């Protein structure tokens, strides 16, 4: 079994209201060195496959079909070694 770790993030050009709100709150906490916050999703996926390449194909398909909306989001897949 393969364990995939997926990060889904909003494209840089897309406004992120949640990140903006968190950034604002951090500023209020005095963490004024923080210059920007972007919030995405972290997803762990267990896949049954015979090799990593096959597993990656399955996870990529999961991401582009459902887990990420490619109109405004990017995804990045990593496998636990």
């Amino acid at each position, binding site marked *: 079994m393969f364990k995939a770790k997926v990060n889904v993030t909003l494209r840089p050009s897309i406004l992120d*209201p*949640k990140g903006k709100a968190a950034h604002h709150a951090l500023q209020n906490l005095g963490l004024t060195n923080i210059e920007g916050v972007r919030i995405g999703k972290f997803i762990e996926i267990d896949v049954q496959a015979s090799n990593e390449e096959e597993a990656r194909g399955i996870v990529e398909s999961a991401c582009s079909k*459902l887990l990420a909306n490619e109109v405004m989001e990017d995804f990045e897949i990593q496998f636990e070694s």
Partner: protein
Amino acid sequence: MNAEVKFLWHKETDVSGLDMIIVPGGFSYGDYLRSGAIARFSPIMQELIGYAKRGGPVMGICNGFQIVLEAGLIPGAMRHNEQLKFICKDVHIRVESTQSMYTSSLHKGQVLTIPVSHGEGNYYIDNDGLKELQDNDQVLFRYVNAHGETTPEANINGSVDHIAGITNKQKNVLGMMPHPERAMEQLLGKEDGKQLFESILQALAVA
């Protein structure tokens, strides 16, 4: 309104004999992942996509709009409202085009007062996509103030180009965030939404 309505369960797969399909608002699958993202794969949606592609009229309201977007029937996507608040109030929307079955009996520039109730209604599309929407006259409604002006404050959720409702290129699929079905009776406060359904019925009767 003297129209017969058939309720379709999400597991149904028969959409035959319908003059149009309305995908209503709500919070399908708890809005998990993204609004509409999971509902888009329910059994009825596969039939609905085929129905829409054959030219059948489909109207998505609120969560219904999010679902037809996720299904790729209309271009673009929904972000969280700019100010991160769930917005539940009456808003003003301006009729931008009467070149559709949904608005053919309305007047261009007409301002309707219709309630909204959503947390993710901040419409997004890239610049090329927006230009295409504008060039094809696909924007049917924009958020405006009471005087019909697109002031920054009138854009309640931060949508690109004040967009409140758009169609696909063929104009048989409409998605809109405001709820016209909640403005149907003066006795209950407002009835501007009725004009939209009257326009639809009239267009369907002619067709």
